Each structure stands twice: as C-alpha cells, then as structure tokens.
C-alpha cells in the first residue's frame, strides 16, 4: 500500500467548461426520471405528478443552497465539505458517508437500469429468471451485463476527466432534445386531460403510499451535487456554477413534473407502474405518429443517458473520497492520483467495486430497482439535511467568505458588529428535507435499515482511522481556512473574489484591533 507524501500537493485539473458543468449535472439528474417515473407512479398512483412537484419544491431549495455553497467554496467534495466547514470533521464525515452511499447506489442503480433498456432489444435476456435456494426471480445475465457496464465506466474514468466529461456533454444534449420532443408530441397529440383528472379523482393514493411516492420522487432530483463535486475542476467556478446550477435546477424540475403529468394523461398509472424498468419507452410508445419508432429510440436513449448517470456516480464518488482523504477523514491511500492521467484511480476502482457489490446483492431481490431506489432516498435526504444545517451555520461562522450567489429571502441582522444574513429559504428547505427523511424512515422498509447500517459501518471505520492517526474523534483537525480559501480562489482564477476577501479580512482585523485598543483604554 503506497502512501502519498503528506507534503505533496495534489490537485485536480481545471478542465470543465460552462457546458461541461451543466451537462455533468444534467447527465446525473436528468436521467433520474427514466428510473423514478415508474417507481413513483407505482407508489403515488393518480397523484404521481403532485409527488414529483412537492419533492421538486424541496429540491429547488436544496439546489439553491448548493449553488450558494459551491460557488463560495469551489472545491471537490460538495456536501461533505460544506458540512465539515459548518459543523466540523465528524458531521462532515457523516454527510460524506451518506452521499457516498448515494453515489455507489447511483453506479449500481443506473448501470442496472441502463442494461435494462439495452435488453429492450434482447427480450430473451430480460425474461431469464432462475431460483437459487430461497431466492426467486434472479436474472444472472442481467447482473453480469451490469457488472460489464461498471467495468467499462471504471476504464473511462481512469483515462481522465476530458474523455468522460465529453461523453456526458454529447449524450446529455441528445437527451434534452429527445425529452423535449416526447413532451411536445405527447402533450399535443396523446395527452387526455380527462384521463388525468379521472385518475386524480378516483385513484388518489393512501397517505402511506403518497409519502412513499413523494420520498421516492426525491431520487429523480439527486445529482445536483455533481456540479459542486466538479467545482474543483471547473474553470472560473464562482462565475460558472451559479449560472449552470440555476439553469439545471429549473430544467430538471420542469422535465420531471412534465413527464409525470404527461404520463398520467396518456396511460393509466397501472400501465406505467407495470413497465417499471422502461417507463419512458412505454410512454413514448403510446404517442401517436412517432410511437412506432419512439419505443426503440427511447430505449436506446434511456440506455445511454442512464449510462452517463452511472458514470456521474463513479466520478462523484471518486471526488468525494479524494476530498475526504485530503481532509484526513479517511486514509490518504485513497488520494493517490494516476501518474499518467492525473485521476484519483484508487477511489474510482474502490467505490465502483462497492457499487458492483450493491448491484449484485440487489439482483438477488425480486424488484431490483425498487430495492436500490429505496436506499437511495435515505442517503440523499440525510446528506441534504446536514448541508442545510451547515448552510445556516456558515452564515454565522464564516460571514466573510465572498458568496457570489446567496439564496434569496434573507433577514439581515448585526451581530458583534458583523452583518449576517439569516436564510429564510434555508430554514424552509431544512424543514422540507427533514420531512422527506421522516417519510423515508417511516415508509422505506429497506432504506431505513440498510442506510443507517452503512452510515454506522462508515463511522466505525472513521473512529478506527482517526484513532490510529492520533486525530480527534469528535473534534476537528485545525485548518487555516482563510489561507486555504485564498489559495482555492486564486487557483480558480477568481482574482476579484480574492481581493474582495482579503479586503474584508483586513477590515475585520482592523475592527478587532480598534476594539482591543478601546478596551485597553
């Protein structure tokens, strides 16, 4: 096991452009609806679009919080880094482990779903089912295909950001065009408002089902984190991230609500639910004029877009662990960068293997996608909850860091002579995500057990590692955040922000000196 030198300064290349940043996020978030539509409709039935809309409102607030934090702290790590800055090392680690759970499931879920769409062309494979002891409906060929896809993603990610980012950009653009075409054609030629209203009035789900559906719907919005993951590799992040994030937030929200509204007005919800592995292809197939080619095309597109979403999982997992190892939350063994391609090779391989393991275990259950989606929501809601708390805490703890974007709706107060903005939307978002987490714990039978088990197992590793390194278990390692912030902004070529930050710090130091002087008099 080769350790990198502690003094060695390892950085990720700043290689991602505006389009790349947007597509990185879109590739991750935009694909979620291909899987979530079937799962959410099966649970929320005639009110599936309401479930998507409510989860979407919470997601918008999460998105705004991430936009503020990622543009203020443009480093790899995303949610775990923000939580660490706001709440300290331990909670930073907890947030990181929750998000890592999501990324590894992201790899497994979308690789599995992608091969499911590929198998649209090979129905014989789709229908393979064997019984292994007490386990029934196991499809070993589908599971092997999933493993092959994960292996392919590992290979392209080790090759480097340029290749995998380019893949995201091309396929993401193709997806936007196709989703728009399905929505336009669907609403114009296939949508029957009377069917939508009928399902709303007569097929409204029970409270339990609606809670399950709306908490599952949050998975159709997971992935915005990818933009902040890529922050350390984005050129001029403080300028680019607010632009790309805001576009992404609203685009994804609108596409998700449009798909659910369209599907309930085109087909009975039972039909969408029955096509759990390819709901978008089923929906597209029901559209007149284009339906005969829309089925295979949507399947092909679903396969590709889900592939890039799975790819985003590999990329994001590797970047979170890279950041965690840099911050002494996990072993530095993970931060080894490939000598030729400059990519975090060990984290890519390690967490892709974790994803592969999750895919294999889930493949032993009868409803693979539901099993994976069930756990996905737990990691997301826990991670986001901590991010909201960190956002609020950082407004008080670190008011000097320049924020190129701040969440709207703030109350400004003066505390010890320092102006602090209290984020009203941050508090509303915190309540919203706490409600989603409550729903997850109440209704997700697998997620409420597997999720905490994962987090506790990670915490056990954390305590072992910190103890072996002589680091505080619940306390934090000392950092010169101000110096690091200047280095980060300088590295990102955000020179105006550097100057602004230095000026603010200077004014603060002068104010403190004046206060001391007055006190001594």
């Amino acid at each position: 096991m080769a350790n990198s030198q502690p003094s060695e300064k390892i950085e990720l290349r700043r290689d991602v452009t505006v389009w790349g940043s947007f597509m990185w996020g879109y590739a991750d978030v935009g694909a979620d609806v291909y899987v979530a539509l079937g799962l959410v409709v099966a649970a929320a039935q005639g009110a599936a679009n309401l479930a998507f809309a409510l989860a979407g409102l919470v997601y918008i607030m999460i998105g705004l919080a991430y936009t503020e934090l990622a543009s203020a702290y443009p480093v790899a790590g995303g949610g775990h880094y923000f939580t660490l800055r706001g709440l300290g090392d331990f909670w930073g680690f907890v947030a990181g482990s929750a998000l890592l759970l999501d990324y590894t499931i992201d790899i497994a879920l979308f690789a599995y779903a992608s091969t499911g769409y590929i198998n649209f062309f090979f129905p014989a494979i789709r229908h393979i089912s064997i019984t292994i002891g007490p386990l029934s409906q196991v499809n070993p060929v589908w599971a092997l295909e999933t493993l092959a896809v994960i292996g392919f993603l590992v290979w392209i990610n080790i090759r480097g950001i340029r290749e995998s980012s380019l893949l995201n950009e091309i396929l993401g653009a193709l997806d936007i065009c196709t989703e728009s075409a399905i929505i336009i054609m669907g609403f114009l030629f296939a949508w029957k408002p009377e069917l939508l209203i009928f399902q709303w009035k007569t097929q409204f789900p029970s409270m339990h089902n609606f809670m399950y559906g709306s908490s599952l719907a949050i998975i159709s919005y997971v992935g915005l984190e990818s933009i902040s993951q890529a922050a350390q590799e984005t050129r001029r992040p403080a300028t680019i991230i607010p632009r790309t994030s805001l576009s992404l937030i609203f685009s994804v929200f609108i596409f998700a609500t449009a798909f659910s509204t369209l599907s309930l007005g085109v087909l009975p919800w039972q039909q969408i639910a029955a096509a759990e592995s390819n709901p978008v292809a089923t929906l597209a197939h029901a559209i007149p004029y284009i339906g005969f080619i829309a089925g295979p095309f949507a399947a092909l597109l679903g396969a590709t877009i889900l592939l890039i979403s799975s790819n985003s999982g590999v990329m994001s997992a590797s970047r979170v662990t890279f950041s965690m190892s840099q911050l002494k939350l996990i072993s530095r063994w993970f931060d080894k960068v490939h000598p030729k391609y400059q990519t975090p090779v060990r984290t890519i391989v390690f967490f892709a293997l974790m994803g592969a393991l999750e895919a294999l275990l889930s493949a032993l259950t009868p409803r693979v996608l539901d099993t994976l989606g069930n756990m996905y929501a737990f990691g997301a809601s826990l991670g986001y909850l901590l991010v909201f708390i960190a956002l609020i805490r950082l407004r008080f703890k670190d008011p000097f860091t320049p924020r190129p974007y701040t969440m709207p709706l703030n109350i400004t107060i003066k505390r010890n002579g320092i102006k602090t903005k209290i984020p009203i939307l941050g508090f509303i978002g915190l309540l919203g995500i706490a409600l989603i987490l409550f729903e997850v714990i109440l209704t997700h039978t697998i997620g409420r057990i597997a999720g905490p088990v994962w987090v506790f197992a990670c915490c056990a590793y954390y305590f072992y590692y910190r103890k072996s390194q002589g680091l505080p278990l619940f306390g934090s390692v000392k950092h010169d955040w101000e110096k690091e912030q200047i280095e980060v902004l300088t590295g990102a070529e955000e020179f105006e922000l550097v100057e602004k930050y230095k000026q603010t710090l200077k004014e603060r130091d002068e104010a403190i000196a004046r206060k001391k002087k007055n006190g001594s008099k």
Partner: protein
Amino acid sequence: MDPNKKKIMNLLNARLVYQFFSGIMFIVLGVVIFIRGKGLSHFFNPGLFGLLFFAYGLYRIVLFVRLFRKSQDNIS
C-alpha cells in the same frame, strides 16, 4: 470580423436560440394544458401545472431578453 456578420453570428448563438425556443415551447405547453385541462374548473391539477409551465416559459424568455441585451452591449 465584419460588424454586421458579427451581429448575425451573435443572434445565432446556440444559447440564445435555445433560450428563445424553449421559452416559447413552455409558454405554448402551459396554455395547451390549461385550456385543454379546463384549468379553472380543475385548478389543482391541470390548472396548476399549466400555470407552472407557462411561468417557466416566461422565465426563459426573460433570460433570453437579458442575454440578448448583454450580447448587444458586448458588440457595441
């Protein structure tokens, strides 16, 4: 580059074209959903979603106008 050609190229900027057409698309979609779904009598489903898409379309048009003005300023 010739200023006129630069102006035309600027109008053909992919982002501008995308903002404009997606804005129009969502406005039309919002209207279609609201009218076909009898949005006033069924306000809490087709009505609300129709308004949502319409508002999103307007948002995109506002972004288009802002971007367009900005690009015009850059030329001059």
